[in-house]
């Protein structure tokens, strides 16, 4: 029974990091939603929430609880008018993929991590695009989607440095040292 509870309940440190992720996630959504560049040809806002989740999933995998990521994703979808559920699903896929790869990525070079995150962000955009296609809705222009992906990928080092300065993220802990808990 105690093992079961140990697995279900996150550590205190993980709870703090989840709270921090929730707060920063809400801030990222608010910044993304800020009315800058309403012109259709204006540069799209980079996906700050995805970048935040990407950094935390690699460096602090115990903080990317599935319900939290799902809630943030749905909230963002509803507030910024992304097809509801599609954005959240992409975000969950991103966090799970990077969480699985967190050990090798966080111990490799930053360039390698950047390339891996960019590739998975690309897959996330593809998932959203395919989901919209499957619902027989009008998908966005591929060029517009590619522009947003490029901007998001380009903004990763900035978000990474900001989080390193803010919360001192470092390499992901090994499993024996600090276990990542479910939920």
């Amino acid at each position, binding site marked *: 029974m105690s093992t079961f509870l140990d697995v279900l309940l996150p550590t205190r440190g993980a709870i703090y990091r989840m709270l921090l992720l929730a707060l920063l996630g809400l801030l990222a959504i*608010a910044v993304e939603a800020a009315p800058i560049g309403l012109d259709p040809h204006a540069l799209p806002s980079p996906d700050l929430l995805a970048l935040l989740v990407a950094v935390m999933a690699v460096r602090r995998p115990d903080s990317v609880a599935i319900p939290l990521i799902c809630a943030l994703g749905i909230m963002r979808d509803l507030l910024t008018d992304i097809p509801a559920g599609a954005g959240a699903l992409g975000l969950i896929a991103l966090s799970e993929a990077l969480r699985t790869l967190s050990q090798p990525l966080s111990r490799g070079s930053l360039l390698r991590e950047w390339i891996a995150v960019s590739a998975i962000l690309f897959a996330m955009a593809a998932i959203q695009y395919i989901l919209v296609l499957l619902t027989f809705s009008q998908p966005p222009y591929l060029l517009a989607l590619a522009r947003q992906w490029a901007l998001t990928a380009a903004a990763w080092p900035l978000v990474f440095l900001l989080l390193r300065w803010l919360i001192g993220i470092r390499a992901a802990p090994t499993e024996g040292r600090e276990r990542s808990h479910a939920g």
Partner: protein
Amino acid sequence: MARPGRPGEDRAQDLERRVRTVLLAIAVLVCLLLLGLWRSDNPRLEQLRMALIDAVSPNLGLVAGPLDYAAGMARDYESFIDVYDQNRELRREIERLQAWRETARALEEENAQLRALMNVRLAPRLDYVTGDVIADSGGPFSESILVNVGRRDGVEDGYASVDGTGLVGRVVGVGERAARIMLVTDFSSRVPVTITGAKQQAVLAGDATRAPRLEFIGEDDRVQPGQTVVTSGDGGVFPPNLPVGVVVRAGQSWRAHLSADFKRLEFVRLLRYRPDKRIDGPGRLIAPERTGPRLPAEGREGEQSTLPLADTRG
């Protein structure tokens, strides 16, 4: 190299994996359910969205304020660089407009006299409420904005929104303190319009560009670049004669370059407009046209609710 774990640790990891798999499955199901609701335009999803927007809209404004201020500073700096040229251009514009003002006054006077002679009934002045833009979709999937006026300000679904120069979009979701406006540039936006010079009806179809397509033009050989596009009022959603843009040629198709300034969209007016829904006759589809004398209309809200174009367009 994987370190062989103790049996207790293995069990815990196995349990953790299972719990995570279950949570993942639930999250995926919830997302797919939401996607289904979104696709079927379920009103509950819109209610959920607007409840969430109502809850967070004050905080959105707090974050958007400084960012908007910074963006405004950048815009102002750009303007400052070419302020001399702008000043000269504006002076020229003022001279041109002063000449036009006199012409417009004369035309207005003449128009009023003619209307009086023809006993034309005028539409009531459109009432409006102005809202501050507090958020936008910001991504490639849709073109929409949030404004800080809602049900408490009398806003209802379907209200047209304009800026100082032209049509911006229409309200597609209303909360207590905020409303969501789908811009005319959105993929889902369809606006019935009239090309005034060519006297042709068309549909303005948004496609995430500054100049949406003009579709279903009756006789497109009468259309010329530079002709004005206004709302036709068909369908009863938009008031008639709201400026939309000017016709431009794009290859083999026609487009309307929008009048609204989306680059500097900070405030929008939401027009309180209710089309005249009185039924004056039985309709030819369900009964033969009445040939006898017309009965006086009963229960009318007043002559003022009659639209002018219904009488004048013939």
